[in-house]
């Protein structure tokens, strides 16, 4: 019987420069949960088993390794836990569709300001907040995980471009850091 070896979206080791660190994440399973009309109650019951509830627009919730991110109207991504059996929602496996990076450190706001056109300043985008937007020209789900850490989810096939652009921006910021005046 053949044995298939799993590969990650890209081979890339952690990078730290320009006041920020970029690393690949292994977020575990990702499931899209799309509530049907009148499915909210049944959906909530299913999520209860994970200690989570359906997130409000632009928000996320976390319980241990499991987190759930709002990703659209009546749609959320459950990440880090297998989707529980659930009435009232269409569940679709998205585990292999997304490359996940963590971006952290004091320079994280500067890095994001180069590639993200929406306001994700630390003062405007609280921990737990989520936005679906672009990472330069690539689709992205962005979540602020903690004080100085963000999770970036982008199309798996674009992971190389996404990593390259983030790294390039970090390099430019590092070079800016060498300017005294």
């Amino acid at each position: 019987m053949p044995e298939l070896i799993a590969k990650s979206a890209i081979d890339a080791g952690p990078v730290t420069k320009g006041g920020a660190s970029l690393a690949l994440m292994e977020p575990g399973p990702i499931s899209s949960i799309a509530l049907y009309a009148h499915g909210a109650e049944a959906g909530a019951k299913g999520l209860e088993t994970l200690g989570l509830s359906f997130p409000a627009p632009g928000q996320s919730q976390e319980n241990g390794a499991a987190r759930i991110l709002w990703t659209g109207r009546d749609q959320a991504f459950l990440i880090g836990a297998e989707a529980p059996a659930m009435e009232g929602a269409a569940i679709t496996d998205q585990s292999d569709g997304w490359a996940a990076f963590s971006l952290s450190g004091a320079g994280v706001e500067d890095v994001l300001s180069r590639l993200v056109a929406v306001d994700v300043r630390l003062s405007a985008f609280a921990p737990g907040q989520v936005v679906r937007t672009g990472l330069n020209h690539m689709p992205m789900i962005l979540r602020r995980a903690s004080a100085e850490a963000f999770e970036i989810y982008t199309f798996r096939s674009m992971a190389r471009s996404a990593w390259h652009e983030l790294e390039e921006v970090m390099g430019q910021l590092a070079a800016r850091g060498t300017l005294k005046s």
Partner: protein
Amino acid sequence: MRIDGKGIIDRTRPVSFRFDGREYGGYKGDTLASALLANDVRLVGRSFKYHRPRGILTAGSEEPNAMVEIHGRTNQTPNVRATVQEIFDGMDARSQNRMGTLRHDLLAVNDYVSPFLSAGFYYKTFMWPRAFWERVYEPIIRRAAGLGSLSGKHDDGSYEKAFAFCDLLVIGAGPTGLMAALVAARSGADVILAEENPHLGGRLIDDAGQIDGEPAALWVARVEAELRSLPNVRIMTRTAVTGAYDNGTFGALERVGLHKSARPNLPRECFWRIVAKRSVLAAGALERPIAFPMNDRPGIMMASAVRSYMNRYGVVPGKRVTLFANTDAARDTARQLIAAGVSVAAIIDPRADASSVEDCPVYTGAEVIDTRGRLGLREITIRQGGEEKRIETDCLAMSGGWNPTIHLTCHMNGRPQWNEELAAFVPVEGAVPGLSAAGAANGTMSTHGALAAGKAAAEAALRHLERNVAEVAVPGAEDAPYAVRATWAVEGKGRAWLDFANDVTVKDVRLAAHENYASVEHMKRYTTQGMAPDQGKNSNVGALAVLADATGRGIPETGTTTFRPPYVPVSIASMGAGGRGMGFAPQRFLTSDQASRDRGAPMVEAGLWYRPSYFPKPGETTWKEACDRETTMVRTSVGVCDVSTLGKVDIQGKDAARFLDFVYTNMFSTLGLGKVRYGLMLREDGTVLDDGTTARLGENHYLMTTTTAGAGVVMRHLDFVQQAFCADWDVRFISVTESWAQFAVAGPMARQLLAGYLGQPVELPFMGVAPVQIGDVQGRLFRISFSGEEGYEIAVPTRYGEALFRDLLARAETMGGGAYGMEALNVLRIEKGFITHAEIHGRTNAFDIGMVKMISAKKDCIGKAAAQRPGLLGPEREQLVGLRAAAPITAGAHLFRPNDKVELKNDQGYVTSVGYSPTLSAWLGMGFVVNGRARHGETIRLVDHLRGIDVLCEICDPVFFDPEGGKLRA
């Protein structure tokens, strides 16, 4: 000449640079202009049209004369304003727009023939012979009248673009801006303070005035220190706000590394998009020249610039200075020079009633009427009453008053208002929503007035933002009246320049009026006034005043041209930062990418994806040899091809089948479990949108596939249909394109390959789907074919894609098969008559492609009604046909009856796809021919003028290979 004890340059850090090949010294903080003036270099450039020797007029970004090229290792940047460019060690600056040396510019001959070169000269002179314009006249004129030059090489410098957000954007950090920023910062608002200079303070530094009885620089330093200590303030120096756009968005250009020698990754510039809830325009005002005869010589400069050079850089631009000014405020220039020990030869004031208290000769009611000194000012002639007098001087400081810097307020079509007392245009409140102009930008000319206005503007903005306002006292400062009396042009012999940058004189504007280009917009275009890199910052109001006078109207009646973004020149490189080369678009890579490259496959772009074109074998010298071999391989053994790029949409819900019936022309609600069906999708206008197969995976669970190019478009279409027409249906869908890697396994040995690999017999009927287990991995097996052979597609979660591809390939190779690329895939599908977006290109409908019967009569669908409109269903339509030829044919060629003349009116159709079929030993094509389905068997002439191809073809059925489909269903 450098003087002691003045300026904010760092005299402990000398800097060495080159100008036109000669070494000069300056200090850190010097601009190229200040350093050249410190070295007594007055001649810096040549004018645009007449190649007149020019010096430095201003000390800011509005500079019209002193433009240079900066040469770096890999960059050559033209039209850099010497008044903005800071010097750094090793900087290589060169003068531009000259032939020969700067001192002996051969094109200065233009100046001697200038009587012939007035406005409209080209239009009148180079009319004949007509054909000469493009090939002879224009190149010569462009060579003679020009700006800097480019290297012709790629600019491989680093550039950045960035986004910023704030409650209050303060544009300009002079007294108004500093005060506004301080009030807003202390009130807790998020503030961005943007200043185009490297330092803060604006004219507080330039004029070396006093605040609260202390040097103003001390107050500036204190405010700067406080602002820098606050977390809610971002100070952006070297950043010019270039444009005002919708919803509080501003463009801004930051000079990041232009004041340093190049270093790796350091951006040269950053183009910012700043989104502000409110904004204060505190950009100050620009001093305006006076158009007196021969007013363009090196050494003649703005009075405010003379003060800036003295107080910013400790540089005095002359040894014997004269002042020609029409305001009380400008007199300070003379007082400061005298205090610094510089000789002031005369003050010339056109106001007869002006005071004369200064400690030097003062001529009131007087004007400068001529100047001398070809490469630098030597002498001026003044006229007082009927008397003329010559005065020796090497620097004439002039001031015709001030124009508020209203540019940004015009960017959204706001028109400024004429203010008679100031003799200037002032902004209209609300011209840019959320922005208020304050201080000198709003016509408040005293320092005290500016400080108070800055405070008031910030307070008003804070009230709009519903924030508390911190109490900040306005410090004491000069509050003298401005007292201007308009002086635009001085009558006399000789040319009087209005627009230095474009060599437009008073005479040119009067000529425009005389020739009836009397509207300000026409005058501008006829004379080119205001169309140079300085965009009329120095000349617009003066030219307008001369035009008003020449046409006997007032200035308000004459109106003004508008200002458009950008406020200062913006490099395209900064706006397109990151987009050079491969940065233009994201790249999408297949899981099989490395395996394909390992086999030497060249990649082609399909959408953003990179797909293997073909897999060359040793001995093959052309792509066609590989393509022929791969095609035959699939027809005789087995081929493997990565088809993961096709769009995949997971569709669920009890209304899923109903939804599919609605978006597809054909019926899907009758599709059995474990079955796949081909579907056709129309746009609302009845044109074909996309095609593909949809599989039924469960009771209420479907998997739709789209074309590669159509994946995004179809997803958008599905979202639209659901949200607009059936939001209440229980159907949910999401793209799973990225989630699955999928490979076609096709050919007579495909089943054998899969059975061996999976270790079990494969008994899937044609158009069937079933789950499949590969070790621990759950996959899906489809029996579908795009080649006409017995074909399967096997899908696994993307992470296993590379492993599966390598396994399948290894097996195929042991069976005499192998990988096939896009070229062979294309030939296989043409042989079979399968369409792609080459055929469904956005102008063809179901009738045209021979699929009108797929529009089900039993139900409605998107596009059905529109597809049945008259004119879309008849013999007049160009219909899909096959083409067969013995010689090479090309897609894009047009088709003609053999005996017709090859011209548009005889056009019978066109070719969309071609390929050489090794199976049929013929060139095959697909195309569209008028009433084509009724013309099978007819000979038609294929003409491709671009590639020089002219071949007779036979029109046939588009399905060349296995028309009964026996092989598919085997």
